[in-house]
């Protein structure tokens, strides 16, 4: 279907090669394995495939039709039309990695601008061209920190209020480091910051916290950062980029590494991916960064140009001594984020941040006034996500909401067995006051049901 060869083309080409038939090109493959019979459905034309895929998609319920309060690491934000429209330019999405700078200045400049925007957003000095997602960015922070101390420090502290999937991924990535301890996120430590601070010692390579944390709370990490630095440990903060429109960035708080899930920056939910992981560091860790980096230079005529730089750190040059095995970046997703941050700009970005904050607080207040629902942590400031304790089982509540075409939020007991009957809700700028009032109405029915 996608091959242009006419019968005549094939004949002429075979003749030129000096073989009689196509099969002859494959005679190196042992005959008993050649041309297996594949049990696949018959091929579809484009028209049929379009209909078939539409049919499959129609078996899903979407955040377009349903009212959604789901967050927990992926957020339903409005994406301006310009983002996807520009993304669909063939010059961008059908290009390869910009290894040939002379004919890749578009991709390279976009990455350079992405790096600049991430530095400004997080208050850090240097950003790479992205990791796969927030979880792998967190794992790369662990690897960076272990390498930074030449594997002499054997402990990584991670708060229980860091996204559970980030913690799981970090553990998977470091599974061959047999004497490494990843601790601090046990049930007993909980999300108690003082207990976590007390665990920092001279063997600690990295402390990872989240800001706002997984439960949406805005926590003061000043003392934690000071203590970690007193012991010579690095501090990484996983941040929500939307919240950075409002909050003091990790760079200003003294963090050494800022990382996070970039999905809220103009990337569709798309059932979990592709997203992007952003990763930025202070100047003194610059050469320890893994992943692609774009830098400014000039061409032979003295004209400003961008190139991939510090490639000597990367897998294709250093092979097994590389700082990481990553070779791609989330190219097109970083472009989406760059366009998103640019078209929103200073004003629009801060506006989104503020709208999320305001609406989430209205929702929290309204829900907490309902009988049978209370805020778990009413005294800690939060951004756009919060936890509600329910008198009724969360599954029943979610089922009832689903029947009213509402995705009610995330059941925390899935990851936190100690948080029974706790429901976490996220509110973005897409949610209206009316939506929140409707949610409350339906929640009220639960209680009386």
């Amino acid at each position, binding site marked *: 279907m*996608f091959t242009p060869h006419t019968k005549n083309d094939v004949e002429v080409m*075979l003749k030129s090669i000096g073989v009689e038939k*196509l099969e002859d*090109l494959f005679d*190196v*493959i042992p005959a008993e394995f*050649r041309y297996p019979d*594949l*049990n*696949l459905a018959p*091929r*579809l*034309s484009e028209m049929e495939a379009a209909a*078939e*895929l539409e049919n499959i998609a129609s078996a899903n319920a979407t955040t377009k039709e349903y009212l*959604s309060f789901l967050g927990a690491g992926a957020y339903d934000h409005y994406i*301006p039309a310009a983002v996807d429209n*520009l993304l669909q*330019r*063939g010059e*961008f999405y*059908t290009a390869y990695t910009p290894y040939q*700078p*002379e004919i*890749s*200045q578009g991709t390279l400049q976009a990455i350079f601008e992405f790096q*600049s925007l991430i530095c400004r*957003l997080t208050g850090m*000095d240097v950003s790479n*061209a*992205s990791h*796969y997602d927030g979880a792998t960015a967190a794992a790369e922070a662990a*690897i960076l920190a272990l390498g930074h101390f030449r594997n002499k420090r054997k402990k990584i502290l991670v708060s229980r209020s860091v996204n559970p999937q980030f913690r*799981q991924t970090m553990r998977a*990535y470091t*599974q061959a480091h047999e004497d490494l301890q990843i601790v601090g996120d046990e049930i007993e430590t909980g999300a108690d910051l003082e207990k976590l601070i007390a665990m920092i010692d001279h063997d600690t390579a990295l402390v990872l916290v989240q800001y706002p944390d997984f439960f949406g709370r*805005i926590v*003061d990490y000043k003392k934690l950062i000071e203590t970690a630095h007193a012991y010579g440990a690095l501090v990484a903060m996983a941040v929500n980029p939307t919240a950075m429109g*409002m909050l003091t960035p990790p760079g200003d708080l003294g963090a050494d590494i800022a990382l996070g899930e970039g999905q809220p920056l103009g990337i*569709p939910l798309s059932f979990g991916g592709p997203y992007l992981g952003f990763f930025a560091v202070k100047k003194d860790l610059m050469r320890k960064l893994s992943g692609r980096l*774009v830098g*400014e230079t000039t*061409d032979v005529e003295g004209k400003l140009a961008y190139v991939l730089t510090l490639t000597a750190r990367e897998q*294709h040059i250093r*092979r097994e001594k590389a700082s*990481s*095995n*990553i070779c791609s970046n*989330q*190219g*097109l997703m970083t472009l989406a984020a*760059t*366009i998103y941050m*640019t078209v929103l*700009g*200073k004003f629009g970005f801060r506006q989104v941040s*503020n709208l999320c904050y305001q609406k989430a607080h209205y929702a929290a207040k309204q829900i907490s006034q309902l009988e049978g629902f209370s805020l778990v942590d009413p005294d800690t*400031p939060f951004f756009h996500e919060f936890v509600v304790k329910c008198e009724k089982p969360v599954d029943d509540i979610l089922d009832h909401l*689903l029947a009213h075409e509402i995705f009610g939020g995330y059941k925390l007991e899935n990851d936190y067995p100690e948080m029974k009957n706790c429901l976490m809700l996220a509110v973005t700028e897409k949610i209206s*006051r009316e939506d929140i009032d409707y949610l409350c109405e339906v929640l009220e029915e639960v209680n009386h049901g």
Partner: protein
Amino acid sequence: MAEPTIFDLSVPGRKGVTFPDSDVPETALPEGFLRDQLAFPEMSEMDAVRHFTSISQKNYAIDLGFYPLGSCTMKFNPKINEVTSRYPGFACTHPLQPIESVQGNLYLMFTLQEMLKEIAGFAGVTLMPSAGAQGEMVGTMIIHKYHHDRGDQQRTRMLIPDSAHGTNPASSAMLGFEIVPLPSDSRGNVDLEALRGLCDDRLAGLMLTNPNTLGLFDENVAEVIRLVHQAGGLVYGDGANMNALLGVFRPGDVGIDVLHFNLHKTFSTPHGGGGPGSGPVAVQKHLLPYLPDPIVGIIEEGDEETAPLYGFIHPEKSIGRIKTFYGHFGVMVRAFTYISMLGQAGLRDIAEMAVLNANYLQEKLKHTYTLPYDRKCMHEFVLEGHWKDLPGVHALDIAKRLMDYDFHPPTNYFPLIVPEALMIEPTETENKETLDRFVDAMLKIADEAKNQPELLHDAPHNTPVRRCDELKAAKDLVLCCYSGDLLGG
């Protein structure tokens, strides 16, 4: 002219896309946590659109021309993929929705797993890995865990042929394996003698790229695998070159234990200027329990009237979670669309036309450029981009000169075993006229190398920028547009 950056174009007070005013009573902001400023650009939407359109035009892309980039499989990316993956039914689904509300997604993932199993001959597939390199890492994690579970901790050596993909050593090193390079023989196959000498109880596995980066199918593949298995090792298959084998050969049939795919190469999903990729991993039955957590499965069988219920399965000895959620779903929709449009006959046609195109180019070029391994190739081949009597001309010069003829250069300086390598992969989607034009350019460049070498040394001439000073970039390290107070700049 150089395009200004978004920060150069910014004018204080200018607005782009804005949002409605808040419709809820105001809550005070969290004092003590607020930032003073956010140095983002201030542009109108039109200025932003012109900026990104303008820089896009400085890119080369498949939609513009021929991209014979070896081992990257730069085939046409069908437009329908971009339509289906954007259907709101897919794009507007949250990964934590109740499974009953995402049966379409789960069906698609389950079916894609089944398709990939069938195409490559394996018992199970995970779609979670984000790219080929992460697929490799997952594969080596599985090998690592498998040996450890069997008490075989002493198996610490990973053999990597010198014709394998460049990421293999770094992926193995992430798991603490000792990397042992394995030489190629004079025909470009794995050197069996060298392999025999390394088959002992320290052997964890062998990472086999087949066809290898010379574009050659290993003539002794079955024997290579037999030797590794006999010594208690596992064989990892680097499936980056699967385009040559679709519908022709299944790596699982010959005993490869674990294999990764690159959906962004073989299955036509766009490279996106460097990502996102997608690197599903297939395993044989004995490795099923080690797959990443979770994978998609049927959790309630259906019958004639009801469809089965798809959900998540947690393999019992899983290596764990290697990213958030379930993988690059949007990329999976594209690959699914593509495979649906091919079926068995279409897949075989892909491999046959890819191999036909490569052999045609090889035949046309091998009389002018040195072909170090003169055999029929698979989907790609490697030439030497230099001539003994022209010591001043390098593969890089040829690569850059090709840009003046409106072609993307081949991969150069890889594989490392061929001096001044030019690795050429035409893919099946190119027509004969394009291949002939490329041959003409390559022959003309060979002539220029002899008679007007400065044309090569100074190339490219007509590109948006010319050769760039990479040393300066690495020395100055200007990695972002400084907002004034950073790095003292």
